[in-house]
């Protein structure tokens, strides 16, 4: 493994340096049929789950086959995608915001051949490499974060939870059998790199024990004022401790004020809070970002804690399945999960799903909490 220079000269870092050039111009990468009809699209049809037809004013057509991916992917798999795009799509492909890959062709015949090819490809373990679906009133691919694969603050894994949830919802991914689109997101901690606070189903990793304090090292690796300022509830204060006759500048934590957000750990590596029994998942439902029919809304916590059960998280999977089955059977056409829950009332949501309502589900964090309590005698028995 001899070092191979790119041409960069560490003694003269500015020599031939190119910077601030940004991304490549998207116009270079548009398939010709899209370039020719840019801004001139007339309508679209979802021919079958995962297959879209867009028709331009000119009469040109583009067929798109959408496939779910794991988001975490190897270059070997990307090369295979490139081979497929070279064979069928003149060397063009795209990815979606929800981690799908899309292959586009300009005729129905090419589309059928492409779809057949995609569906024939499997990993050695038996799973599909390119499952076709994720359109219309079905479950689309999950937006998610890094989890135990690559992050320092997670309370759960993301790639694993996504895999087991989507295995269970595969039928819903490859069909249009839900009342409306179902958008699921997984965030492995409250930082929510996947911003899942407005999803139909949001799986959120949470910690439940206060941070440990590495007193002997804290002052060496952390700015104590920053650690104090990072706490949204003012639970962290400066302190001194004596260990073996030596005095260390450190912090103290008022444990009853801690809601385990982990922001202090982000600012200070000497305040770790991950813990096998403490960590797990809060399940939130009923959020949306589309403005369709109702306004965008936040997801609400309906299960305060589900333990981590790697590798296949059976309780998590079963709970999501239960909620979606009840929603599927009970909601009106076009009705998103949150709109359904609001129409029937949250008391009915808990009754129908059989999920236990606990005090943890009542908001007690700051002013917005009050607006979620019920100031009315309008409720159902």
């Amino acid at each position, binding site marked *: *493994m001899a070092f191979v220079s*790119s*041409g960069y000269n560490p003694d003269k870092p500015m020599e031939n340096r190119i*910077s*601030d050039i940004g*991304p*490549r111009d*998207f116009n*270079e*990468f*548009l398939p010709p049929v*899209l370039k020719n009809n*840019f*801004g001139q*699209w*007339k309508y679209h049809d*979802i021919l*079958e*789950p995962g297959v879209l037809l867009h028709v331009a004013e000119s009469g040109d057509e*583009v067929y*798109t086959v959408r496939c779910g991916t*794991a988001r*975490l*992917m*190897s*270059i*070997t*798999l990307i*090369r295979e995608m*490139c081979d497929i795009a070279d064979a069928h799509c003149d060397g*063009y492909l795209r*990815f979606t*915001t929800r981690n799908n890959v899309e292959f586009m062709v300009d005729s129905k015949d090419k589309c059928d051949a492409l779809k057949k090819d995609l569906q024939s490809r499997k*990993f050695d373990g038996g*799973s*599909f490499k390119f*499952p076709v679906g994720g359109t219309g*009133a079905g479950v689309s691919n999950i937006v998610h974060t890094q989890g*135990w*694969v690559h*992050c*320092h*603050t997670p309370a759960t894994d993301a790639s694993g939870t996504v895999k087991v949830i989507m*295995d269970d919802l595969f039928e819903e991914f490859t*069909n*249009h059998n839900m009342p409306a689109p179902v958008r699921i997101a997984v965030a492995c901690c409250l*930082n*929510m*790199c*996947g911003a899942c*606070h*407005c999803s139909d189903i949001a799986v959120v990793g949470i910690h439940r024990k206060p941070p440990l304090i590495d007193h002997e090292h804290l002052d060496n690796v952390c700015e104590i004022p*920053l650690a104090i300022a990072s706490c949204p509830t003012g639970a962290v204060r400066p302190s001194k401790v004596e260990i073996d006759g030596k005095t260390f500048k450190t912090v103290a934590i008022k444990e009853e004020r801690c809601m385990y*957000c982990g922001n202090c750990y982000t600012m200070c590596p000497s305040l770790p809070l991950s813990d096998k029994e403490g960590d797990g998942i809060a399940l939130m439902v009923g959020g949306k*970002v589309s*403005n*369709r029919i109702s306004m965008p809304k936040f997801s609400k916590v309906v299960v305060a804690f589900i333990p981590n059960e790697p590798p296949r998280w059976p309780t998590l999977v079963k709970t999501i399945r239960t909620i979606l089955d009840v929603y599927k059977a009970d909601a009106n*056409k*076009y009705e998103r999960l949150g709109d359904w829950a609001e129409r029937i009332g949250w008391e009915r949501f808990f009754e129908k799903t059989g999920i236990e309502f606990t005090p943890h589900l009542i908001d007690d964090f*700051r002013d917005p909490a009050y607006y979620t309590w019920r100031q009315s005698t309008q409720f159902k028995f």
Partner: protein
Amino acid sequence: MAKHKTPLLDQLESGPWPSFVSDLKLEAAARAKNEKDVNYQIPVEVVEDLLGVLELSYTDGETHWKHGGIVGVFGYGGGVIGRYCDQPEAFPGVAHFHTVRVAQPTGKYYTTAFLRQIIDIWDMRGSGLTNMHGSTGDIVFLGTTTPQLEEIFYELTHEANVDLGGSGSNLRTPAACLGKSRCEYACYDAQAICYDMTMEFQDELHRPAFPYKFKFKFDACPNSCVCALARSDFSVVGIWRDEIRIDQEAVAAYVGGEFAPNAGAHSGRDWGKFDIQSEVCDNCPSKCITYADGKLTINDKECVHCMHCINTMPRALMIGNDRGASILCGAKAPILDGPQLSSLLIPFIKVEEPFTEVKDVVENIWDWWMEEGKNRERLGETMRRMGFQKLLEVTNTKADPRHVQEPRHNPYIFWKADEVDGPWERDVNEYRKRHQR
């Protein structure tokens, strides 16, 4: 023969959904074989060791990654996230495992030539593992060592003509929906403005000067496919302000059952015959649609642009011709003060090259937020702390009932001196001449 036994992860190879474990094993085997004779610049066993450390996390229920160290490329304050394993002796291949964020082309369209070019760089100088794509939108290269960072940056910029994305307290890599390239709902060219503003603000993207992260997202219509108003500090959402165009013949085709409603989105179930009254008119949030005597009528003045009727009958109803965008501000995830959606600031703005009007809004916001924002305070939190009125003031925006869901519940108004008649500074002795102590 795998380097580490992974009995727990192996259970994630079954089931129909693409298995990342199978994919990682494929990559580990490809690196071990090295058919292309790549001169690997980081340990060959990097993927094996990633599987190993992940298996350890699956066993003990805790992560094994440490805080990022300060690593990066010369002159940039972002784009690379340092990552170190807390069990480097057991898993030396991932002892250093830094992330490189690469700026994605807007709309995430690629040629295979470009994709092959960048992954060849990553094959030789990184782990061969990626995220396509990260949550903000970047191409994410997952795992390399510190000495490779400048080399990767040099090759990306010199050979592939592409730059790093954002991280830290700076402008994050902006993202847009696919807009006009393949969607009839696009009310403005989301890709063009996204690319233009990304290029305009390269300095803000690479050199952290903000209180905290700042995100732009561009949705070309209110369906919000990139979730702009939930996921970005500066959310630009396409909208029209004239009449929805109606093709009555196509309406009749939906009513007659020739066209599937919602472009066929509900094809997997028998929902009965399409009923335009209950499915379209009754679902309209402002009840501005009527269907009578075979004719659909929309009272556009009362339309709230929710897209439902257009989504349901895309061949019959089309967005209006007077198009532009609404700008909403301040969305963020729960850390710190709870989740926020963006709040409406500019009800309508034209989005036309060179996009000066939109840029003026964002620059005014930055001037204010950089002055007043606290360390690690997102725009939405500054807005809550300082008041929405302040945002109106700094962006020279006139208050409008559209800014609120309803007027305030209390009269605790922060009147300013110039809003009240008569002198603001008064003499208490003069007052006492009229009122005894």
